[in-house]
């Protein structure tokens, strides 16, 4: 009797489906945000690395002599930190996209994965926010200069360099906002698990 009952039970797993549909939607949004994060970090790094510009400017020691001098991101420690931090974030976004897809396909591991995601997302919020702050602070001095300490602006000479740095910082700001959204979502998923 029990064995004949079993074929009748398959409709049963259909009942929890509406409940499990919700986490699936969450994971779709999660994967989308992570792919967007990857695109944003890669764009930001590429734009920053390709910002090299050589211009004919007067020499620092002899203002009468004009020589072609390059401007590139590796001249400033803040911009080097920016490129390193965003490259690491890009790598992290690839790994977590794959992990997020695999969790969506096999929900068995989802609990420990969720905790790790929530932690690492918060760590990367800190990393990307500090990198954006550092690059933005230096780029602002490059744009406006500072007459109190005698730092001249360089953006009038190196226009392409400055445009690249500015857009790169803007894209990384977008990446930081994406990461905040992602970590809010990871926390919210944990929260939903309590309510269910």
């Amino acid at each position, binding site marked *: 009797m029990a064995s004949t009952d079993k074929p009748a039970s398959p409709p049963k797993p259909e009942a929890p489906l509406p409940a499990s549909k919700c986490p699936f939607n969450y994971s779709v949004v999660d994967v989308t945000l992570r792919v967007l994060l990857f695109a944003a970090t890669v764009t930001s790094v590429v734009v920053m690395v390709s910002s090299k510009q050589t211009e004919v400017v007067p020499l620092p020691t002899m203002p009468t002599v004009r020589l072609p001098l390059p401007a590139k991101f590796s001249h400033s420690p803040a911009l080097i930190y920016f490129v390193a931090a965003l490259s690491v974030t890009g790598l992290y976004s690839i790994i977590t996209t794959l992990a997020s897809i695999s969790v969506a396909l096999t929900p068995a591991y989802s609990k420990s994965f969720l905790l790790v995601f929530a932690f690492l997302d918060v760590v990367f919020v800190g990393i990307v926010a500090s990198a954006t702050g550092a690059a933005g602070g230096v780029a*602002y001095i490059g744009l406006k200069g500072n007459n109190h300490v005698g730092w001249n602006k360089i953006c009038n000479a190196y226009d392409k360099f400055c445009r690249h740095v500015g857009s790169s910082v803007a894209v990384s700001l977008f990446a930081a906002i994406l990461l905040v959204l992602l970590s809010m979502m990871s926390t919210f998923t944990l929260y939903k698990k309590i309510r269910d």
Partner: protein
Amino acid sequence: MDGVGSNVKVVESSRRVTHCDLILRILGLILTLVAAIVTGVDKETKTISVSITKTLPTLHVPVTAKWHYMSAFVYFLISNAVASLYAAASLVASMAVRTSKEKAAMALVILDMTIMGLLFSSNGAAIAVGVLGQYGNSHARWNKVCELFGGFCHEMTAAIILSLVGSLVFFWLVALAILNLHKKSG
């Protein structure tokens, strides 16, 4: 009986987390407030001698370093002040409302995270400009200024370190809350 025991355990662990939470919030409040105050009162005046031509006598010009001369330090001070105000408000809120209620805890986690991002970005900006002041940048011809304003730079460094520890405190707040949510969900 068993159910009662586990219930007591859950209440105890959440109370311990709340104590830890309160201590961390007070720490964050103190650290960011002190960082903001140290930045705000940091001021140094030095006299430099300028000789324009050999015939004219050398001029002694007083020059001052203040936080609001550098936009990154303005951002640093404001975000530290905002963070300490938020820490005070959240301290009051978490004492008034029991944070064991998940909804309030969720709202606090999200706000904590935002403030943490703000603190980290302002620390990044202040450190980047501080490094420029310390070492200068020969490519952009930005000379170092910390040789002249040694005291100003030391106080700024202290404020940055305090604020860095403060932002790590906010990170631990978020991490603890996430761990707490994880424990409750299991």
